């Protein structure tokens, strides 16, 4: 299945491509590079070849009239009528991109009675808001939301469309992109405009954060991307900003919608990990479910959420929604306090972009210390309560 083309006449057998291949798909056989089926056309090697012996086939694409597509759109996610802060983060970055493109920033607000959210969207930077108010849109459901957004995109032709990479955002983005037969890049950690081509350069981690890839959507529109929580800042709010609010006609009836939301079981009294600015997380070193008690106390003082490593979850000490890491949630708080967590690569993949990492572990060799900002080698059952007490005293909580 390898796509990579190797010009055997030109290849000098220097082995640079073998070194840079993230998948181990290349090898040297009798002094010439050969590729196997592990190659996924990631393009890591092509620019590295000093003699230009490597290439990837160009795709056969019939480009639509791309110049028709203008402007940056953001979907404003809501939960029980309240807009989600991740959408304001998208508007903040959307504003930056729209200014670079010299284009309008449009927010799409779907729901019932969402006028206040539309005004907020303008205050957060939108020039224009489409508001779709219809009973079928009260709670998020894939089908009616995808339908309304798909129709709006077809009519108004934006060049960039951003959604938060929340559960609902990813659910919706995958559906809308397929409906529109366009490109979608998930979980971006960087978005910028190439000034020459107007293309959106979308950078995201892959392979558990071991590799970063920059992806473009050259011939399809809109260029769709989702962005994780807290990658971009919520912009400053400016209530004096003015913008246009446009009501959208929705031609849907409840009978057309297969899925019904029967109920929602809110997680009471628990800070949502994705939105948390502070996470206190525990691992195998906690020794049992009761080990999380001092962590909860510390989280309470810091106004944070409680996370866990996979081992702690697999032992049944704390439920799965708390799991941080490659097979749990990816988080990006300002402060992550890892207690009794050794820091396996899969765990680090879910939290290593945190600004300040504190690690508390009895084992000074634990890999978590490789990425920690501050480290304490010690017994977490002594350190955590003492830290809680100090913080409580100094912060007056």
């Amino acid at each position: 299945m390898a796509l990579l083309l190797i010009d055997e006449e030109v290849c000098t057998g220097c082995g640079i491509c073998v070194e840079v291949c993230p998948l181990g798909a290349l090898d040297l056989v009798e002094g010439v590079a050969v590729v196997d089926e592990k190659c996924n056309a990631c393009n890591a090697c092509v620019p590295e070849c000093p003699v230009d012996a490597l290439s990837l086939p160009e795709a056969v694409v019939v480009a639509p009239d791309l110049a028709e597509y203008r402007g940056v759109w953001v979907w404003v996610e809501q939960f029980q009528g309240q807009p989600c802060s991740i959408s304001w983060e998208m508007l903040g970055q959307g504003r930056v991109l729209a200014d670079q493109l010299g284009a309008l920033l449009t927010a799409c607000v779907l729901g019932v009675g969402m006028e206040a959210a539309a005004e907020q969207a303008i205050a957060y930077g939108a020039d224009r808001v489409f508001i779709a108010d219809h009973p079928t849109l009260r709670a998020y459901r894939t089908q009616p939301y995808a339908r309304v957004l798909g129709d709006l995109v077809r009519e108004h032709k934006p060049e960039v469309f951003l959604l938060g990479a929340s559960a609902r955002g990813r659910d919706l983005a995958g559906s809308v992109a397929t409906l529109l037969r366009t490109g979608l890049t998930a979980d971006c950690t960087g978005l910028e405009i190439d000034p020459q081509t107007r293309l959106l350069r979308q950078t995201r981690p892959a392979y558990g954060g071991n590799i970063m890839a920059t992806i473009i959507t050259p011939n399809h529109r809109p260029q769709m991307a989702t962005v994780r929580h807290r990658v971009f800042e919520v912009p400053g709010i400016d209530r004096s900003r003015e913008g246009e609010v446009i009501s959208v006609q929705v031609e849907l009836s409840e009978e057309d919608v297969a899925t019904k939301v029967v109920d929602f079981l809110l997680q009471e009294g628990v800070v949502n990990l994705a939105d948390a600015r502070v996470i206190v997380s525990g691992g195998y070193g906690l020794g049992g479910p009761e080990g999380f008690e001092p962590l909860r106390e510390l989280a309470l003082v810091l106004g944070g959420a409680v996370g866990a490593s996979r081992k702690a979850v697999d032992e049944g000490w704390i439920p799965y929604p708390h799991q941080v890491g490659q097979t749990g949630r990816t988080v990006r708080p300002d402060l992550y306090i890892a207690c009794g967590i050794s820091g396996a690569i899969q765990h680090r993949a879910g939290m290593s972009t945190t600004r300040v990492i504190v690690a508390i572990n009895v084992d000074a060799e634990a890999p978590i210390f490789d990425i920690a900002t501050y480290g304490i080698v010690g017994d977490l059952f002594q350190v955590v309560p003492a830290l809680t007490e100090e913080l409580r005293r100094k912060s007056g909580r």
Partner: protein
Amino acid sequence: MHAIVCIKSVPDTTEVRINPETNTLMRSEVESVISFFDIYAIEEALRLREAHGGRVTVVTMGPPNAVKELREALAMGCDDAVLLCAPEFAGADTLATAYTLSRAIDKLGSYDIVLCGKQAVDGDTGQVGPGIANRLGIPQCTYVFKIRDIDFDRGTIEVERLLEEGREIARTRLPALLTVVKDINQPRFPTFRGIRRARRTEIPTWTGDDLGDDAAPNCFGLDGSATRVIEVFSPPKRKGQVEWIAGDNVQEMASILSDKILAERVV
């Protein structure tokens, strides 16, 4: 009942080692495995079969070696497996992958439920499941961690979905596509009998000729992909080294650390 499970063969990231010099994956000894969440999708399909009868078909698009992962699914108890493997499938992004898988599902004939993992552990996109559902024109329930009720006669299903704020209970009609999270079940291990049977089961390979649609050419692989990877690089390393907090006793260490935390102005 016919359940179809879509799986992905991925490098075993538990085996992945980073080359500290180049900060890239070390190329040797990267074995392929079934992507983590897909194992839960297989298990859930097997449980549905045990409760309701019927059969489970497992499908993957991948290199010839992915037949190893299909055999593992068969060893767990799946009845049939299909490998989608052809040069024209190579270089597929999620748009083209979802298309190819949806064509294969169509070709498999009637089905009641399609199951996928919530995302693959290499790409982490979670886009292929919704893409397949959209192509097939069936409802999707993503991030499912419990099937509360399923009635194949009436064609209804009720699930619990794991979202940021808690659990959503949703009801929809069958056939539907579900993507599942890890908490949904505890996957079984292959049995010796299963492994023996898996070895004997014939696994057909389908190519573009088997799945193509004359009305929509160039939808597979790189041709059918809307995105292009233009650059791959190592993630920026975290700056600096760990600052060790030491002290004569726990109180002193806690005091120093609390000052550091408060000075970072994150609280």
